[in-house]
């Protein structure tokens, strides 16, 4: 039952008294309305703008937010009103829906914002009234297309492990993926042009030599043209065969339009080869040469505009069909009339109705060659009517075709624009992500500094360092820190990560290092081994200036590494400890996990993976440790020998 007419339910129930005398059985008991509330005004405060309505108005649609008890969550006790922190302009149409039962879509509203509002208030968009439904659907479709364009671009990214065939196919379809493909693209384009020009020039009369009349160049320089033709056809054949080989679905490729054009373009040559000397079929041979002109269609692979045109014509098939049909009708009518009108006049060119077709077509398209002209008065009158109507009939479907073309063209342009802007968009996203990551690392640094200052006891410096981060930020950083502690890994930045990777590659050999480190103190064990697998940290310095000068060089690495060696191996939750040697007793000073290279950006999963994961994702910048901490027994690492200043850092 449409809740819009809920107001009439009391009436319908009252009218049911009309059935009572007719009924033979007793009636069921009526439900009691216990909540005998008086109809009251409800105040809805939407971002400061107060809307007021009756309670029963809202109760009409009990499966929405405002109609159900869900709105009690938004009730403000002090002001006795319901407060919603939403857009008041969009709320207008939503409240009007309750009042009138019809949901309208305001045209100036952004479609996604409106959708969000509807979802928030629990109203399904399908009940938008007929007056606004079309517009809503159109806008929604446009939006979807826009988002789809984005996703399709991602498919272009190079997939790993493509075999030769797939690489070739991709090179054919997107020439800008590799230089070879680009070269191939231009070469084929060049040869198509050459072939077309050859076909054209072949028929131009060259200067006459000793002969009486002008010969076309084709007959004069037969050999040259034949060589040219052969070269072009060979290139085309090779190209076609390569495409056929590389196509993922050969059957589908052979059925596609482009492949048919290719075949039609090169077949005449081969057929000509076969039957050059047969005089009987020379007529057919000449006809076949006409098909050589189809080579020009091969350009459509090279030009997007051509493809758009073709697509437009295909999509306007119905309009074109209508144009053709109406033209045919008009032609037949006028041809008949003209024939009978001109029948009387002598030496009339209008010998039959089909002969008059030619006159009608020429007149309707306003060509007017003048080879057939009416002489009688009636003929002239009907002829002029014919030309006037021709203009109208042809002009009618044209705007439809034009608008179709315009729409498709703009769609394409929009796709190109998005592709161009994609880089900027991605860069923006990346900056935002790295900004957030840097903030975290910076705060960790500050945390370290705070500890340092606690140890050294300088109060003023501490206060200087305490950067005022917002509560949100500090909570976020705490969360990331908890993650670090959970996985016993730490966030680092990209540069360090890359250097790690490089050095891992360099250090594939020294497998002795674990044993070396195992001879060391327990500290060395855990760190040494980890150093081997996780690649020691490079000597990267922080990009941004920070208040405390850091040690460059291997010392930093050591201390850095040592910071990593935090958690005791009994941290069995972390898989990264799997290849930890168990004989790390006495690892008193070791806390914390390994060096990881996880991304701080939240969507990607944390690097809770074994060693090999050191290569995942862009690494984050690690904070260089502040100097001045008491040294701990040196560890021997593969990168440096002077393991003096090892920093002991208490938990952040």
């Amino acid at each position, binding site marked *: *039952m*449409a809740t*819009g*007419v809920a*107001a*009439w*339910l*009391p*009436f*319908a*129930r*009252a*009218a*049911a*008294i*009309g*059935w*009572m*005398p*007719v*009924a*033979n*059985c*007793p*009636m069921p008991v*009526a439900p*009691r*309305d216990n909540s005998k509330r*008086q*109809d009251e005004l409800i105040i809805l405060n939407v971002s400061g703008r107060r809307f007021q309505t*009756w309670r*029963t108005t809202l109760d009409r649609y009990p499966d929405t937010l405002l109609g159900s008890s869900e709105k009690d969550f938004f009730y403000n006790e002090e002001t006795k009103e319901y407060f919603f922190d939403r857009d008041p302009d969009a709320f207008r149409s939503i409240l009007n829906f309750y*009042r*009138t039962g019809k949901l309208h879509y305001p045209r100036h509203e952004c479609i996604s914002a409106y959708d969000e509002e509807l979802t928030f208030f629990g109203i399904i968009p399908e009940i938008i009234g007929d007056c606004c439904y079309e517009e809503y659907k159109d806008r929604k479709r446009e939006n979807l297309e826009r988002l789809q364009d984005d996703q399709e671009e991602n498919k272009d990214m190079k997939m790993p492990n493509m075999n030769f065939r797939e690489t070739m196919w991709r090179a054919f379809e997107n020439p800008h993926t590799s230089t070879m493909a680009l070269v191939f693209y231009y070469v084929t384009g060049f040869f198509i042009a050459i072939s077309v020009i050859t076909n054209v020039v072949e028929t131009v009369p060259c200067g006459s030599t000793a002969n009486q009349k002008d010969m076309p160049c084709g007959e004069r320089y037969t050999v040259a043209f034949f060589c040219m033709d052969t070269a072009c056809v060979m290139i085309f054949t090779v190209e076609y065969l390569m495409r056929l080989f590389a196509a993922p679905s050969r059957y589908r490729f052979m059925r596609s339009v482009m492949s048919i054009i290719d075949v039609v373009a090169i077949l005449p040559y081969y057929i000509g080869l076969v039957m050059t000397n047969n005089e009987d079929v020379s007529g057919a041979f000449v006809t076949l040469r006409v098909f050589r002109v189809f080579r020009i269609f091969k350009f459509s692979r090279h030009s997007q505009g051509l493809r758009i045109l073709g697509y437009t014509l295909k999509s306007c098939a119905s309009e074109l069909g209508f144009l053709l049909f109406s033209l045919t009708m008009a032609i037949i009518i006028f041809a008949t009339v003209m024939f*009978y*009108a001109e029948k*009387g006049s002598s030496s009339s060119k209008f010998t039959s109705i089909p002969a008059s077709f030619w006159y009608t077509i020429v007149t309707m398209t306003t060509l007017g060659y003048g080879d057939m002209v009416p002489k*009688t*008065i*009636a003929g002239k*009158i*009907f002829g002029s*009517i014919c030309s006037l109507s021709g203009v109208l009939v042809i002009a009618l479907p044209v705007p439809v075709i034009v608008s179709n073309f315009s729409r498709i063209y703009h769609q394409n342009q929009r796709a190109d624009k998005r592709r161009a802007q994609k880089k900027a968009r991605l860069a923006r996203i990346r900056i935002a992500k790295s900004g957030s990551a840097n903030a975290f690392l910076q705060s960790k640094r500050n945390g370290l500094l705070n500890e340092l200052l606690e140890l050294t006891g300088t109060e003023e410096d501490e206060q200087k360092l305490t950067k005022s981060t917002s509560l949100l930020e500090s909570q976020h950083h705490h969360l990331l820190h908890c993650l670090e502690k959970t996985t016993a890994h730490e966030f680092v930045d990209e540069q360090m990560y890359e250097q790690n990777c490089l050095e891992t590659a360099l250090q594939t050999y020294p497998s002795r290092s674990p044993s070396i480190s195992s001879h060391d103190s327990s500290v060395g064990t855990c760190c040494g081994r980890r150093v081997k697998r996780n690649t020691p940290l490079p000597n990267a310095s922080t990009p941004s200036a920070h208040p405390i000068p850091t040690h460059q060089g291997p010392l930093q690495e050591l201390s850095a590494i040592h910071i990593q060696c935090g958690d005791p191996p009994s941290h069995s939750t972390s898989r990264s400890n799997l290849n930890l040697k168990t004989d790390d007793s006495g690892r008193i000073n070791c806390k914390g996990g390994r060096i990881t290279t996880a991304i701080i950006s939240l969507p990607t999963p944390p690097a809770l993976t074994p060693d090999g994961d050191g290569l995942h994702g862009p690494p984050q910048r690690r904070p260089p440790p502040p100097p001045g901490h008491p040294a701990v027994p040196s560890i021997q690492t593969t990168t440096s020998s002077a393991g003096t200043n090892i920093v002991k850092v208490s938990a952040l």
Partner: protein
Amino acid sequence: MVTMNLEGLEMIAVLVVVVLFVKVLEQFGLLEAGYDDSVEDELELSAVRHRPEGLEQLEAQTRFSRKELQILYRGFKNECPSGVVNEETFKDIYSQFFPQGDASTYAHFLFNAFDTDHNGSVSFEDFVMGLSILLRGTVQEKLNWAFNLYDINKDGYITKEEMLDIMKAIYDMMGKCTYPVLKEETPRQHVEVFFQKMDKNKDGVVTIDEFIDCCQNDENIMRSMHLFENVL
């Protein structure tokens, strides 16, 4: 002097030219088309608006309180902003309550019962008077109203045909999917039962007195009359 020997086709051509000429003159306004009434047709009078009598008068005429009248009017005007309900709208609204069947016939009878002055539209006064009887009236008044509903031609007698029409209309509201399955003769049988009960003197019609008498003696009917009293 040029003798115009017009042959058939040429005559047609000349006629066509003349017609076109006339059309062109019409465009210039030199020839009146002669379709004067079309202008007035354009200015169709907008829908009849109706304003009800004052609140006090309605309060006096019906048994509703002021607040109840306010609520009723608001609901009424929301659905019918023009202030009157015509039969189409009435049928529409009533049909929404019975989605499974076809309520249009019964709605038609109901409309006639509410439209006491028979002017083809139910104004707010008609609406509220009818409701007043149904919800707040005495049993006598209610039975009167029901009799009025059944008596389609308002001649004071319910004939079997009228009752059959009403019965069919009621059964139509049930629709097709019922249990047990509705048969063709079910309404007729129901009418027979009804007439057996109501028609005391077996003259084939039921008068108002027979009706009221019979209903007052029937316990079921009496009880059901009070069923909808707390609707508003």
